[in-house]
């Protein structure tokens, strides 16, 4: 919390003196507060990070492998830190619509976010699985080659040939197939919700729009088994 500023009164000298005295008093409090601030670590404590990770894993699954709750809850393990940070920001700013994740996100300090995304990136459990395996060959073809006739670029061109992503481009390898399907089908209903503040989710909008449901299901199945 920052020290509160006192506006100096424009009225008479006495008032100004009182205001200045009051300001001095508050400044000393402010310095006191600021000093207390300095003793709080800039980084989150290991204990707090571990507790927060355990909380994330209640929904996101053991080692953040993902979990099939009422909704499919995505794998975070091995995810690109920049992508995770962007999404948390999007949830907090309501550019991406999700009440539960808004509540999760708006409570996190920058230091905590940095610690969490770093830790998630290091996790590497096996994919949760469960997708129909017969869709894999079709999904792989779409992932590797795109669908030129529908102007759908190869997913691999941005997400990497191994689906592990890069920087702001998310890892897709090992993602829950029902989660991937749900996201692609609902892309513009959930993301980019503030037209006054366009974000990187716009990149995927035409692609999500052009893919048919069977194509989405195939790609999602393929990705869900990648390690």
């Amino acid at each position, binding site marked *: 919390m920052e020290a509160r500023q006192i506006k100096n009164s424009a009225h008479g000298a006495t008032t100004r003196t009182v205001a200045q005295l009051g300001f001095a008093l508050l400044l000393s409090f402010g310095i006191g507060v600021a000093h207390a601030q300095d003793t709080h670590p800039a980084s989150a404590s290991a204990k707090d990070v571990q507790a927060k990770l355990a909380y994330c894993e*209640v*929904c996101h699954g053991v080692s953040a492998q993902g979990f099939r709750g*009422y909704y499919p809850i995505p794998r975070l393990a091995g995810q690109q830190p920049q992508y995770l940070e962007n999404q948390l920001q999007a949830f907090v700013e309501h550019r991406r619509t999700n*009440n*539960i994740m808004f*509540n999760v996100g708006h409570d996190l300090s920058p230091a905590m976010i940095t610690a969490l995304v770093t830790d998630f990136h290091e996790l590497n459990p096996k994919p949760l699985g469960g997708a129909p395996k017969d869709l894999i060959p079709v999904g792989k073809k779409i992932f590797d080659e795109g669908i030129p006739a529908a102007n759908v670029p190869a997913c691999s061109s941005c997400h990497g040939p191994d689906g592990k992503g890069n920087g702001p481009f998310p890892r897709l390898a090992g993602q829950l197939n029902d989660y991937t399907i749900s996201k692609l089908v609902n892309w513009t209903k959930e993301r980019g919700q503030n037209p006054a503040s366009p974000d990187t989710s716009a990149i995927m909008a035409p692609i999500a729009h052009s893919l048919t449901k069977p194509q989405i299901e195939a790609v999602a199945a393929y990705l869900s088994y990648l390690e």
Partner: protein
Amino acid sequence: MILVRDWRRRTPKGLGLQTTIVAAVFVIAGHANAMETTALQAKIGYCQDCHGSSAQGYRGYLPIPRLAGQQTGYIENQLRAFIEHRRTNNIMFNVAHTLSPAMISALAAHFRDLNPPPIGGAPRELVAAGEKIFQDGVPDANIAACAACHGPQASGTGQIPRLAGQLYPYVIKELMNWGKERGQNPTVPDTSAIMSPVAHSLSRSQIEAVAAYVSYLK
């Protein structure tokens, strides 16, 4: 997730596989007919003695939970947990260990389709706070939103239980005693482990609020 042993795979030694399958089909068909008329009805009546006339739950010496509208995957898991003593309850152990797999499936399907109104009775003034915890979680106390897994109407899904209309004192008892009653075999960890951190993090008053909220949901 726990591995569900498929009872139907067992075949008697000495018979050909095809003969066994044909015999099994007739036996199961015969059993299904018999169960629908007599044995199943008798068993349902027996469950209702404790769980209420429409399985809405009952305040016995201990609160006896609502089974009406419950997810079949969850009922089947709990019956198995009682049988294997992974969930501690002497009465339910005795109930469950006499049930055939076919009877368990039939009972679960029957309860799933019941829909009596909640029996109610919880303090109404707790409902608003309970709703907030249920839908939003308590992020700064690292308490996940119940709705993420149990659904926004607390209907549950698959193996995740319905909480809507569950008895207020029962929900409190379960959450307060989670680690003492469930997951009792450390060598056979089960899905109850998911709830341990949640039950542990919730304070008594938060538990009461959530319990009150879900107890009125339909």
